[in-house]
């Protein structure tokens, strides 16, 4: 057991899985000699060679398209999209191809593919290096979308994604890379995709969230505890498929639900979670469902006051949960 950063957990999982399965290849812009712009793949080309850790031409559609072909022909590609913001040229390959290939071939072909992409803001990345893009993909049957919040989960979810027979989008929050640390066992383990994690039990309010926001919510819960407000926190970990059972359980337990994500409010995961609760647990609620999310502006601005105004913070979560508790 070692204490690792979120980023190190991802790198060491890639290393461990690659040692275990020679079909795994890593592919993307600057992932080779440079080890990625965030250094997630640092040292991997040195260990596994240029045939398995490959610098790609700067072309996202080709990164995913070729990965699909390689996956169908027996490899386990783990391509990296340098920033989630740049994934859109590949959306045709992800949505029309990877997601639909099993269905359209009546089960004859599958695409075991993991697309890793750093996402999220608060790192002075402005409009095109700060986006949360998960809702676009969570809409698509055939895809799985996971977003770890801790180094422990980063490892177990990445290993599960790599071993999955279907295409998985694995989003890594940039602000978590070095700021979030935790214990990670040395041995290989899996966290099943689609299982949420109850991070904390409480009586007054449930916060349902994922990714970096889980850490912010935990901080908010500590503050609120001092005020006598007891907060339960559910980390979704996977936003497609959603863990419907655990979502409904926590909603029924506290009767007050705050859904938090950094992605834009409208059409975000919060809407889906909210609809599930409204459909299946309405009469257990003691207050209207509340959502706290990134505002509906096209993307995150650069200048610090504007960026801060966009970001969902621990303070904003504390305030929202306090308001909900008092309802």
């Amino acid at each position, binding site marked *: 057991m070692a204490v690792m950063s979120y980023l190190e957990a991802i790198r060491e999982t890639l290393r461990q899985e690659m040692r275990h399965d020679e079909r795994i*290849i890593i592919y993307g812009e600057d992932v080779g000699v440079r080890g990625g712009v965030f250094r997630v793949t640092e040292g991997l080309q040195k260990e596994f060679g240029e*045939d*398995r850790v*490959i610098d*790609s*031409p700067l*072309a996202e*559609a*080709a990164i*995913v*398209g*070729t*990965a*699909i*072909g*390689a*996956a*169908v*022909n*027996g*490899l386990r*590609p783990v391509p990296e999209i340098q920033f989630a913001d740049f994934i859109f*040229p590949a959306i*045709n*390959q992800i949505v*029309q*191809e990877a997601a*639909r*290939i*099993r*269905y*359209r*071939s*009546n*089960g*004859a*072909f*599958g695409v075991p593919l993991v697309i890793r992409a750093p996402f999220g803001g608060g790192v002075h990345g402005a409009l095109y290096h700060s986006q949360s893009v998960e809702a676009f993909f969570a809409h698509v*049957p*055939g895809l*799985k979308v996971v977003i770890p919040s801790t180094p422990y989960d980063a490892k177990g979810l990445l290993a599960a994604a790599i071993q*999955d*027979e*279907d295409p998985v989008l694995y989003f890594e929050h940039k602000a978590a890379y070095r700021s979030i640390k935790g214990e990670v066992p040395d041995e290989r383990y899996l966290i099943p995709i689609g299982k949420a994690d109850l991070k904390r039990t409480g009586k007054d309010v449930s916060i349902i969230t994922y990714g970096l926001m889980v850490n912010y919510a935990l901080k908010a819960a500590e503050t609120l505890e001092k005020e006598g407000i007891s907060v339960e926190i559910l980390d979704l970990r996977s936003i497609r498929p959603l863990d419907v059972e655990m979502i409904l359980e926590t909603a029924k337990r506290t009767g007050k639900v705050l859904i938090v994500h950094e992605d834009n409010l409208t059409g975000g995961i919060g809407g889906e979670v909210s609809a599930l609760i409204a459909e299946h647990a309405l009469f257990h609620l003691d207050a209207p469902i509340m959502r706290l999310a990134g505002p509906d502006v096209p993307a995150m601005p650069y200048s610090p006051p504007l960026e801060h105004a966009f970001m969902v913070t621990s303070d904003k979560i504390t305030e929202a949960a306090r308001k909900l508790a008092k309802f």
Partner: protein
Amino acid sequence: MAQREPVSGLPVDREKLKTMYYYMVLSRRLDERMWILNRQGKAPFVISCQGQEGAQAGVVMALDSQVDWIAPYYRDLAVVLAFGMTPREVMLGFLGKADDPSSGGRQMPAHYGHRARRIFTGSSPVATQVTQAAGLAWAFKLRHEAAVAVAFLGEGSTNQGEFHEALNFAAVQRVPLIVVVENNGYAISVPQNHQMAIHNVADRAAGYGIVGVVVQGSDPLAVYEAAHAARERALAGGGPTLIEAKTYRYTAHSSDDDDRSYRSREELLREKADDPVVVFRESLMRLNVWDERQEERLQQEVRAVVDDATEYALNAAMPDPSTLMDHVYEKD
């Protein structure tokens, strides 16, 4: 053994010439039958290979269907038949039947795919198969396997970014890829000169530092030679090749199109003078590989095969609505 004797001056033996011709005729007749079924109201949609059979059969004869992968597009009836899909299987897909190997009746007709036959499933957004074929080829290269992947597409689809991205990638990584452009002159209604400012699509190869070849689709032997050379080059580590086969589309884009609004009947008649099926038959006869008696027998045989495939597929079961949710994920 006489069948395997080489024909003087040609790169292939008699058997291969006859096989090539067989698949060209089979494709034409099967395609014609689909139109009849469509006009009879038995099938909602047909999209055709007519006019492009020479280019298609010529390429496939140069491949090894035991090891290579192909990623065809919707006009590639002769490609998939020559690569191993049966007429019955084609008709099951055409009629949307449960046992359609391409998709179990989920996709529109002519979206071919067949795992056991190494035919990769295709979609409708064009040129996505080119990057995928580059990936199929990439896996061969990484595993040091002696095989190639072949992507097929129309000339209109070469305007897509993915065509460019795929060839650039394949060239950089020197993967064993062959990209075959079946240039039939039209992207639905838009002629080539409104699609690109060059005459030969193969000229685009220069931009990737790879070999580009132009061949006449009505000359399947020339196509075969180009594909054979491309395969040899790929296996030797020479990377991808872009082959452009000049063809012409004899039907409207599909059964939902009316080509009279954008091309003249005179043009169509002029182009049909270069019908690959007719031109190839005549050259086989000149070479004394083929005669009228064999032709008559072949036509009878093909008619029987097409009749059988039609009957078989018409009587086959439709998909069960309860299977709608199957195969979204592996566990389903």
